[in-house]
């Protein structure tokens, strides 16, 4: 049975490879999106069906590619042209619409489409009956399409297309509840913050085109060192690409958009945090690693590592003092992304991608579980208002627990244990001078992660049963409030009213909600073993070629000689820290809750500082928004009084002439006659004078 499936997969892989059909992976979600967008009004509640089919198809193809490349690493798909001719050409500049699928892309595609599919299934249950159900699935599908384009393109232009595309799709989805002003503000914040990063990437792509004369990966990565030597300005190129990655992956100082992106529906958060969007930054740096390695002192990579380490610490500290269920997970994503950049910064590329991979599973699981809780609690997200809900939501309790275990990195159960500790080991043993400090920060963050994860878990699921007043009701649709949307919105609101009247006890909801959670649980526990040395270390062996061609050696935790901290000590720390964090969380949030309140009161300065997210929004408001606003005001005055005055003066000249001639126009017929005759006489005299 297994053999025949494997055989079939091999055949499909050959077929896809030989017929250049890999483009079907992004094409299917695109088709689904177009179909839903056009026929959505008629599909109504069935709008998820085409999206499901497309995602399932893409996932099947992705898995086939992964298995095929795994079976024979030489069989990667390279420069597979979708069209015979260039996608577009201008002068000597040709951009092919062509696809690369190597190990890195295959891994990315697998979790984008796989976890995407589970999120889509969850979303069908979660978004049921919401106004704009089809709009939601059209946007989600196009999101996946752009993400696939981003990782599959064989050149920087396709990467940029996908890059901007996910920005657009995230904007549409974060602002999904557009009658709610906070959602609109969050969507704009996400888009504009991303634009700053995109600016860096755009400059990077321009630099590459200018000095390499080509945008195809294979050409650019062939001999970067020679081109860098010929054009000194290229030393800024890694920094440009880095800025792009920081914007999309929400690293300091461009991290502010991600927590606000919670305004979108929960499946969107899961998609943004787990499968798409934020992982793009890691992909960009992993993909362009050869450009980062040209500089022998690795300045850019060190910056990546430091920013990653700082973001990991900052976000983890903020997550410890937040009260919003989804916001805690959002900061946890920032923190985990920081780990990934830390890994990239010390050239542990496979470890970083491994963490992306495991993180995708457990973060999707955590978000969807949070969504399930939110669904049952009638849209309430404040963890202070709920307690002990394990009694009413047994399945969600288990899935959330497994997700928390994975995120906290409980040894051998959680996937995060394997990937995170690998990064920490790589950081500590990196030869860079500041690596030890970063390693200590990373260890500290591991402790904090365990604490804030289980703080949420114990607070929400343990203790006496307490439910918010809205529990069991449907969250009132924001569209029900806006009358302007006509019949459908009103119909939806009536439906919601009916449900609201018949408030039921909160529970796990339909199988559409809990089934994907259960599947993700398997991933959250099992994904770690794919890269564990004790179980064959498939993941790293598989990814190795990507980073080998990039000229990187993968620093192993067990590399001989140069170790700063011996492996047993690291292992002991890795075992101990999560457990200590969990124990602390248990004591403060399950065992002795009053003590927490007293402690928080004593430390209220720190708690406030963290609860206000290090006052980043306020700082940006004072130091960025205010000066920009003043500049805008100044410029508007300049425009109004200087530029406009010049225009007015020009306009005043004809007016002046008109006014000065006005008195001659008295409207009196005799005057007309006199002037006519005078004119005639003047002409006659003039002619006579000229002739005579």
């Amino acid at each position, binding site marked *: 049975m297994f053999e025949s499936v494997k055989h079939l997969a091999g055949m499909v892989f050959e077929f896809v490879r030989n017929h250049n059909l890999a483009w079907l992976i992004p094409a299917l979600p695109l088709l689904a999106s177009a179909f839903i967008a056009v026929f959505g009004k008629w599909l109504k509640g069935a709008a998820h069906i085409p999206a499901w089919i497309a995602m399932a198809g893409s996932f099947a193809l992705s898995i086939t590619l992964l298995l095929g490349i795994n079976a024979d690493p030489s069989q990667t798909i390279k420069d597979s042209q979708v069209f015979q001719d260039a996608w577009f050409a201008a002068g000597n500049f040709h951009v092919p619409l062509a696809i690369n699928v190597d190990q890195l892309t295959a891994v990315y595609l697998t979790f984008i489409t796989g976890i995407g599919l589970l999120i889509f299934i969850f979303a069908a249950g979660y978004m049921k009956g919401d106004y704009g159900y089809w709009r939601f699935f059209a946007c989600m599908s196009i999101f996946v399409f752009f993400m696939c384009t981003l990782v599959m393109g064989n050149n920087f232009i396709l990467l940029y297309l996908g890059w901007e595309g996910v920005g657009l799709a995230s904007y549409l989805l974060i602002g999904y509840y557009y009658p709610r002003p906070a959602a609109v503000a969050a969507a704009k914040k996400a888009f504009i913050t991303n634009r700053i990063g995109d600016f860096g990437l755009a400059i990077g792509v321009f630099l590459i085109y200018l000095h390499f004369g080509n945008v195809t990966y294979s050409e650019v990565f062939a001999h970067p060192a020679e081109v860098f030597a010929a054009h000194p300005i290229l030393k800024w190129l890694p920094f440009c690409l880095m800025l792009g990655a920081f914007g999309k992956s929400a690293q300091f100082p461009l991290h502010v958009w991600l927590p606000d992106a919670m305004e979108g529906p929960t499946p969107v958060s899961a998609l943004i945090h787990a499968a798409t969007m934020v992982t793009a930054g890691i992909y960009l740096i992993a993909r362009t690693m050869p450009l980062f390695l040209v500089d022998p002192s690795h300045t850019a990579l060190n910056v990546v590592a430091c920013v990653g380490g700082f973001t990991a610490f900052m976000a983890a500290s903020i997550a410890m003092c937040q009260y919003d269920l989804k916001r805690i997970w959002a900061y946890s994503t920032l923190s985990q992304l920081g780990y990934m950049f830390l890994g990239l910064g010390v050239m542990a590329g496979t470890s970083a991608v491994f963490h992306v991979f495991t993180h995708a599973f457990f973060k999707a699981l955590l978000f969807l579980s949070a969504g399930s809780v939110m669904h049952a609690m009638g849209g309430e997200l404040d963890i202070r208002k709920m307690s002990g809900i394990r009694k009413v939501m047994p399945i969600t309790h288990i899935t959330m627990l497994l997700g928390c275990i994975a995120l906290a990195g409980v040894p051998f159960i959680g996937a995060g244990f394997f990937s995170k500790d690998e990064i920490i080991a790589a950081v500590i043993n990196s030869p860079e001078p500041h690596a030890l400090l970063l390693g200590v920060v990373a260890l500290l963050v591991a402790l904090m992660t365990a604490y804030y994860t289980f703080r949420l878990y114990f607070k929400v699921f343990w203790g006496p049963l307490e439910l918010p007043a809205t529990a069991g009701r449907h969250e009132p649709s924001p569209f029900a409030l806006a009358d302007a949307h006509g019949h459908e919105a009103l119909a939806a609101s009536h439906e919601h009213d009916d449900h609201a009247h018949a408030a039921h006890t909160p529970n796990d909801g339909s199988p559409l909600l809990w089934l994907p959670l259960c599947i993700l649980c398997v991933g959250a526990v099992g994904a770690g073993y794919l890269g564990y040395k004790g179980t064959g270390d498939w993941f790293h062996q598989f990814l190795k070629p990507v980073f080998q061609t990039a000229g990187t050696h993968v620093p192993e935790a067990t590399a001989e000689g140069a170790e700063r901290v011996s492996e047993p000590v690291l292992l002991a720390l890795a075992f101990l820290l999560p457990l200590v964090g969990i124990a602390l969380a248990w004591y403060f949030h399950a065992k002795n809750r009053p003590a927490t309140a007293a402690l928080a009161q004593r430390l209220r300065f720190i708690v406030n500082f963290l609860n206000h997210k290090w006052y980043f929004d306020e700082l940006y408001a004072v130091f960025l928004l205010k000066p920009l606003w003043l500049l805008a005001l100044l410029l508007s005055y300049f425009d109004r009084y200087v530029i406009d005055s010049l225009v007015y003066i020009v306009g005043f000249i004809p007016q002046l002439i008109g006014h000065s001639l006005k008195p001659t126009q008295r*409207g*009196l017929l*005799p005057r007309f006659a006199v002037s006519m005759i005078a004119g005639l006489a003047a002409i006659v005299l003039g002619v006579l004078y000229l002739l005579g």
Partner: protein
Amino acid sequence: MSQLVLYHYLAVGAILFAIGLVGFMARRNMIMMFLCTEIMFQGVAINLIAFSRFHMNPSGQSFVIFLLTIAAAEASLALGLVVLLFRRRPTLNVDEWSEMQG
């Protein structure tokens, strides 16, 4: 007295034209002003006929026939306009009609 020559005719035309011109500028009565334009017309017509005769070319005379026809049509039109104006406001003084001032 010597024979009548071209200059005499031209002089009559010029005198007629001048009379019309002065009348047009001096008078305020609309109908009188209109008559003055007709006098100027006749001065021009005499001019044309004189030259036609002088050059022994009849096309000038036939041109004047057309001119008179057109003048008749134009006169009826102009008088019609005057009547219309008079209906709006019972005055023929052109100084009263100065809506076109700037």
